């Protein structure tokens, strides 16, 4: 066991730093070409880097004062891009990955529907095969960045006669295709919309946009969600990102609020939790170095990180009293640093209720931990084994 991160004099770090000295303000395309966007991917996309080198590169990107490409295009770079390596065709990789890694094309996920987010398998959007095309009809909702994206990763039902989880398929669609209508949702923060509704009306998609095989859809999106949850095992205020308990503590010390004994105790508690979350995320990394397979631990990580982040912004707010109710981004100071989207406590606080809703509600996460980590009995879904077009008609017991 060795909790030291790779040092300042690590030769791998010196080599990376040398590149940044030679290329002081690299474009995302340059970073992608260098393999620094996804160092852990195989060449030519990445460097086949072991997790330590990946960590070094991420740290050096931050040190160079560059907003990490992941912040800009997280869905392509973290959640979904990797699916093309495992399930995509060579042509799909060539067409979609270079512009995604260079951040020239942003991706969004088109998963949730009005018919259910937690029960994602209940989705109703259809993709009907028509010659060398599919015709897609339906509605998606809670699609982060869909209004700013060029590519959508869409899950739709290709076989309505198969059970709900088996008749699904994933497509990579152009968001500017005729019949795709994107409407931003103004959320309760009142800030620039993060989420959208996406209406799909007779959208014609070439068959070569199918990712994997027909019917692979559930497996693919579950892999993507696991990757996303693992990524959220971090101590930041919203989904692992943004300021952490360290910055909260720093602000409370700077403003003297830490001298209130109740705030002091809560801040101490949150600091400890945050450091332990940091250790868990690093342990996940080590387990991969040591060749231990990534398991269901991403579910535990997100289950812990979401309420932790909510409690951070909550204490940041409460420490301000009535002044915290004024729309003011600078109400509790943050040390200068690149925080990504949630770069102030005000936005983090008003956004916080979503943290236990998106990417699996807290209840869904607890089910996953109980069932997949602890081995407790699974939730029964009476509709799971029926053909989807019949299951829709099953009435819950006790319903009229």
């Amino acid at each position: 066991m060795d909790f030291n991160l790779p040092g300042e004099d690590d030769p791998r770090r010196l080599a990376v730093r040398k590149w940044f000295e030679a290329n002081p303000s690299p474009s995302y395309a340059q970073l992608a070409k260098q393999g620094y966007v996804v160092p852990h991917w195989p060449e030519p996309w990445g460097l086949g880097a072991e997790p330590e080198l990946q960590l070094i590169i991420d740290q050096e990107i931050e040190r160079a004062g560059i907003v990490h490409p992941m912040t800009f295009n997280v869905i392509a770079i973290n959640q979904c891009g990797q699916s093309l390596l495992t399930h995509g065709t060579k042509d799909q990789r060539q067409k979609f990955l270079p512009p995604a890694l260079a951040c020239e094309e942003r991706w969004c996920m088109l998963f949730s529907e009005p018919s259910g987010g937690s029960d994602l398998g209940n989705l109703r959007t259809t993709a009907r095969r028509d010659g060398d095309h599919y015709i897609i009809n339906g509605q998606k909702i809670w699609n982060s960045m869909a209004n700013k994206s060029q590519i959508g990763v869409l899950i739709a039902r290709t076989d309505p006669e198969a059970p709900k989880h088996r008749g699904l398929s994933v497509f990579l669609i152009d968001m500017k295709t005729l019949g795709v209508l994107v409407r931003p949702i103004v959320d309760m923060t009142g800030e620039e919309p993060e989420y959208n509704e996406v209406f799909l009306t007779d959208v014609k998609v070439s068959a070569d946009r199918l990712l994997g095989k027909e019917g692979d859809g559930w497996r693919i999106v579950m892999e993507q969600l696991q990757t996303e949850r693992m990524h959220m095992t971090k101590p930041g205020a919203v989904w692992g990102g943004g300021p952490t308990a360290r910055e909260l503590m720093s602000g409370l010390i700077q403003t003297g609020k830490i001298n209130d004994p109740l705030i002091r105790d809560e801040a101490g508690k949150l600091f400890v939790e945050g450091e332990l979350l940091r250790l868990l995320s690093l342990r996940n990394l080590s387990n991969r170095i040591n060749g231990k397979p990534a398991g269901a631990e991403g579910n535990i990580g997100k289950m812990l990180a979401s309420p932790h982040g909510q409690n951070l912004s909550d204490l940041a707010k409460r420490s301000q009293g009535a002044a915290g109710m004024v729309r003011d981004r600078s109400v509790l100071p943050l040390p200068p640093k690149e925080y990504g989207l949630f770069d102030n406590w005000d936005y983090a606080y008003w956004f916080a209720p979503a943290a236990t809703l998106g990417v699996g509600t807290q209840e869904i996460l607890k089910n996953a931990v109980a069932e997949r980590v602890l081995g407790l009995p699974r939730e029964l879904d009476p509709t799971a084994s029926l053909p989807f077009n019949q299951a829709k008609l099953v009435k819950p017991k006790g319903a009229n």
Partner: protein
Amino acid sequence: MDFSLNEEHEALRDNARAFLSKEAELSKLLVPGATVAQAGYDGMWNKMVELGWPGIVVPEAYGGLGMTYLDLAMVMGEIGRSLAAAPLFGTLAGAWAVEKAGSEDQKKLLLGEVAAGRLRLALAVTCANGTADGAHSDVKAVQRDGRWVVSGRNAFVVDADAADKIVVLARTKDKGQFFLVDRGDRNVTVDVLEWRDITRQVCAVSYNNVSAEPLSQSDDDTWPWIRDRLYLVLAAESAGGIQKVLADTVEYAKERVAFGKPIGAFQAIKHQLAELAGLDQCATAGVHFAAWALGEGDKRASLAAAMAQSYASAAYRDVTYRNIQVFGAIGFTWEMKNHLYYKRARSNAELLGAPRHQRDQVVRLLEKTPELLSA
């Protein structure tokens, strides 16, 4: 960089688990009316001596095994898991006091005896009001004819009755200093308290002009140095206990049937257990980090120790309380072991101060050393 346990740590842990699952016996404590007198302190101690555990972190130069704090955490986790009762906590505490504050001669003599299993120790630092801060003491030390004598009283001394010698913190004219006294001295009185955790012997100790041998290198750093290590010991015990109690609770939730299905199928139960799984992961991570940091003398060592103890002891309480609730009324009976773990958990959160005290230490360290916020 490697945040995982290696195979040697895992082997040490597995061997300790195999040994304790055979040797540690709780059945005598599950008879109503049982006290710590039935915990089997002496028998378990003798078996631990055979394995060399008293000298596990005693440096090799003094006849110990010279193993790391991570190794110690592996063993302490298994002791916490099994609730094996023996005067190890007191002996570790006393040995650390000698290691930190003793003269070279004292270290050679005493640590060698500890490592050989021939000397059991206890560390007495707690005032009657529960304060244990290394500065305050209800025991006074004075010099008479060139010899030191101590008088006064300590509360809540772990393993004092089982000890051969007690290391006591006493006030001299101008400072706090550590002294050694013989448990068998006729001027030393030890009362074993009716401590609710009957897997651990906790005592009040009185001294009436007892001749005492000073640990000559005592200074202001002595107590914090020992305390950080005791935090690790208790936190490791707690994390080990959490793992065991969580496993027991999960097993019971899978077996116990109500309304036609295992109670673990109900979200009211499974969601609670999922939360406990999170506590388990974090408590263990904190213990490993603290053990590593103390072993390396890392600048985060004190911070890590206080974090581990505050988190693990609070989490242990939550897990053992939930465990009783999931078991239902049967878990409330003396003949089940659930209460032994609950009482151990509660007592671990009081013996070295409450979790909020350690959290205050965390904040103080961060105020004093802001670099720790970016380490």
